[in-house]
């Protein structure tokens, strides 16, 4: 890309000798078509180009960032970083720059979607609900990422992704569904619409049930939320450094049926093949038959803990946030959804969680609610829709040894409280889940 090549040439010209430097450019074209009350009401389209310059000398580090238009003169931009470096305190956590051998060439000139293309997917979704009230979005992203450093690394990569996510509502119920993929053409708008419409239809006129401990079958989105919380607060090595991670490598903390992997090298994974440092990402065992295998590391966390970098650094403020897995898959089990339901004596099927928040990171006790399709299951059959429930439950205990009855045999990309396109998961049947409140509080 010309803007990258021009920028890089100018930065190199203005850099003093004997300084460690890392230059990054994220160029993005994103579009999102939003619908509510069964019509498109907001339709947005954005092009952005953000640049991060990090320099390090005499044990001091500084980072400045501008978008392309804000860099009126590259010499001034570099000079601003040099002045900032002088004022910076000693950076004890500096962990160096990856070298040339980590370089990766993956730039592709990807075609962006048109608003008409997105409207077609939205139409497919909405039509499945017939007269029900539909709301949601269809989005597409094309991202190009470039990294150069003074240690010889020169990497670039491109990625595309697309999502359809929506709900149908009746006067007394709602049902939701979600699909993600690398391209708009890969999305199943009709299938997602059908799923959401069925959940909304079937969950009309819900009954209130008493809070307490219940068996649960969790839908894709609910499972995804549990895992993303464990990822951010547990497997993120920065949480370990801060003394807030409950994860203990090598210990049987989870049920044997739980195996989690991060798969950036897989062809069907969404996102870049490189991390923010420009290094090629590698597939990683995260949990193997219930035993944690690794944290998600950045250069800094690996350096501080004396562990191996797993290349999970995020662009932007990612280095400060720690390492996050962005291609996480929970391995399938052997149960169909129907078989999971038929195994339940008395329990609840929950399609999706809502507004989950951690009460204490180290115990992973989280509170939140259900929404968009919940049903009472009795003697192996879904018997009636149920209303709003609040849970207060440790997510570690939810997946603990002995509490996972079965793992579903079908995975898909699922939305989560921290973003989409980062988790592909099956459904789960858990022995106990603690609901602490109902519709009356």
């Amino acid at each position, binding site marked *: 890309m010309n803007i990258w090549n021009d920028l890089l040439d100018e930065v190199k010209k203005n850099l003093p000798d004997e300084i460690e430097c890392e230059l990054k450019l994220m160029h993005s074209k994103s579009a*999102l078509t939003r619908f*509510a*009350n*069964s*019509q*498109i*009401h*907001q*339709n*947005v*389209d*954005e*092009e*952005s180009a953000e640049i991060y310059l990090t320099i390090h000398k005499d044990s001091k580090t500084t980072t*400045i*960032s*501008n*978008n*392309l*238009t804000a860099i009126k003169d590259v010499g001034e931009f570099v000079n601003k970083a040099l002045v*900032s470096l002088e*004022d*910076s*305190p000693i950076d*004890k956590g500096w962990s160096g720059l990856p070298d040339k051998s980590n370089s990766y060439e993956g730039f592709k000139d990807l075609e962006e979607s*048109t*608003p*008409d293309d997105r*409207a*077609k997917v939205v*139409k497919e979704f*909405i039509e499945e609900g017939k007269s029900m*009230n539909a*709301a*949601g*979005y269809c989005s597409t992203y094309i991202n190009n990422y470039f990294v150069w450093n003074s240690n010889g690394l020169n990497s670039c990569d491109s990625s595309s992704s697309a999502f359809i996510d929506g*709900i149908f*509502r009746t006067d007394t119920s709602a049902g939701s569904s979600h699909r993600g993929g690398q391209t708009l053409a890969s999305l199943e708008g009709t299938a997602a619409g059908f799923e959401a419409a069925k959940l909304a239809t079937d969950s009309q006129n819900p009954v209130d049930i008493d809070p307490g401990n219940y068996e649960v079958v969790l839908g894709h989105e609910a499972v995804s939320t549990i895992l993303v919380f464990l990822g951010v607060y547990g497997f993120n090595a920065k949480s370990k450094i*801060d*003394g*807030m991670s409950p994860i203990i490598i090598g210990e049987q903390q989870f049920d044997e049926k739980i195996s989690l992997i991060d798969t950036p090298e897989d062809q069907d994974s969404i996102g870049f093949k490189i991390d923010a440092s420009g290094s090629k990402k590698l597939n990683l065992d995260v949990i193997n038959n219930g035993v944690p295998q690794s944290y998600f590391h950045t250069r800094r966390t690996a350096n501080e803990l004396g562990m191996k970098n797993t290349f999970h650094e995020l662009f932007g*403020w990612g*280095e400060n946030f720690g390492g996050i897995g962005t291609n996480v898959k929970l391995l399938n089990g052997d149960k169909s959804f129907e078989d999971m339901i038929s195994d339940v004596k008395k329990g609840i099927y929950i399609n999706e969680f*809502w507004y989950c*928040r*951690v*009460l*204490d*990171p180290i115990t992973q*006790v989280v*509170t939140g*609610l259900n*929404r968009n399709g919940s049903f009472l299951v009795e003697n192996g059959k879904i018997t009636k829709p149920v209303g709003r429930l*609040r849970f*207060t439950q*440790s997510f570690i205990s939810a997946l603990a040894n002995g509490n996972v009855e079965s793992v579903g045999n079908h995975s898909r990309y699922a939305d989560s409280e921290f973003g989409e396109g980062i988790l592909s998961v099956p459904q789960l049947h858990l022995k106990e889940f*603690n609901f*602490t409140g109902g519709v*009356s*509080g």
Partner: protein
Amino acid sequence: MFEYLELAIDSAVNSGAKYSDARILISKSRNIAAKNGEVENYNESEKIGIGIRALVGSSWGFYSTYDLSKPSLTNAGIRAFQTAKASSMVSGDDLPFADVPVVEDSYTTPHDENPFSISSTDQVDLLLRSTEQMKKLGSSRASGRLDFWDTEKWFASSQGHKIYQNIIESGGGISSLAVGDGETQIRSYPQSFGEYRTGGWEVIKSFEFENHTERLAEESQRLLVAPQCPEGTMDLILEGSQLALQIHESVGHAIELDRILGWEAAYAGTSHLDLTKLNQHKYGSELMNIVADATLPGALATFKYDDEGTPAQRVDIVKEGIWTGVLSGRDSAAVAGVKPGGMVRADGFGRLPMVRMTNVGLLPGTSSLDEIIQSTEDGVYMETNRSWSIDDLRLNFQFGCEVGWLVKNGKIIDMVKNPTYTGITPQFWGNMDMLAGEEEWVFWGTPNCGKGQPSQVGHTGHPASPARFKDTRIGVRG
């Protein structure tokens, strides 16, 4: 900049848009984070770009770009129009749009010292000193952060608005985390995630971090050995910053007109409020008087015009317990048949403006925190938010706080840990029976309100003073 905006707007209107407006922003930020006496993050950022929206039929089209060249600006107007027009495949009735006075004006946030003119070394040193001191006093992780934003914004519309605003915001905070055997405890000041206001470096100086480090370090460690918060139904006393978040979640979001109209249904949710019950619905006790006031000097959501050119104003939301108002924009107000409230803002140039809370606050009462405690026989006083969760109708909520203080027979007798409370919005507010006065009324600011798709972060204000809520369920644990 106005000629750039006009170029883009003319392009959208000439393409066929019924209405168009655009904003060019120069957004500067400085973010500093420290941990245990060392800098964890320092970043300065500057972004420049344009965001233009076009109204066609029932939909908004929006396009944003960093490229301010003339061909790009012309293209931006065309793209905004084309994007809106594509919505006709799944369209509805034409979206009405209320008129507001067409003005040419400018505004700058009143401030003493622009935070970007203060040496970054001084700002870093403040955090290093505070966190180092807490670390020495036994904190497992002593953290601090400062954030500054200087946003120049040029707004123009196809109706003739030309408005320049320079909004300056400053904020930050410090916290001490104690790690015990299988648990963590934290104390923060001025509130969790920091306190933010419009204004300059003087905002940070007023916090006097150095006077609070010892207390934070001590309380965070003491919490590790404190007894658990009792479970049961009793009186709940909330400190101001926690009450501010309670207002944000159970009132502020519920009164957003776009949510009430279903425009946010899939993501943020809707509201338990029904427009046919406006001026009738009982939201809380007679002590409950909520206003949305974007004109409060120094509060975080204070400006002169919103991102649709509507003047900042004060709107009654709840009067003596009765729901009387909503947060609205020019389109949602026209749909609902109310006056536009000037509450539409965007997160930078790259996002579509949407209904946002201004300073949605609880007007002070006549009591004081001391009086409230003295008149409480059996209750818990909770300070500083630690967790928050509420359903998508903004009815069923559960909050956790950093620290609780057991109150018996008018006196604080013990510290308790892991305090939580839960409730249902109208019942909870209906149980508010004591409210502290103006002397304890603080313009709390929330800098991290998420809403919209693509996601946007909003800066909102919530003036509040301490209050008591009778018969509240306390001590929910997993």
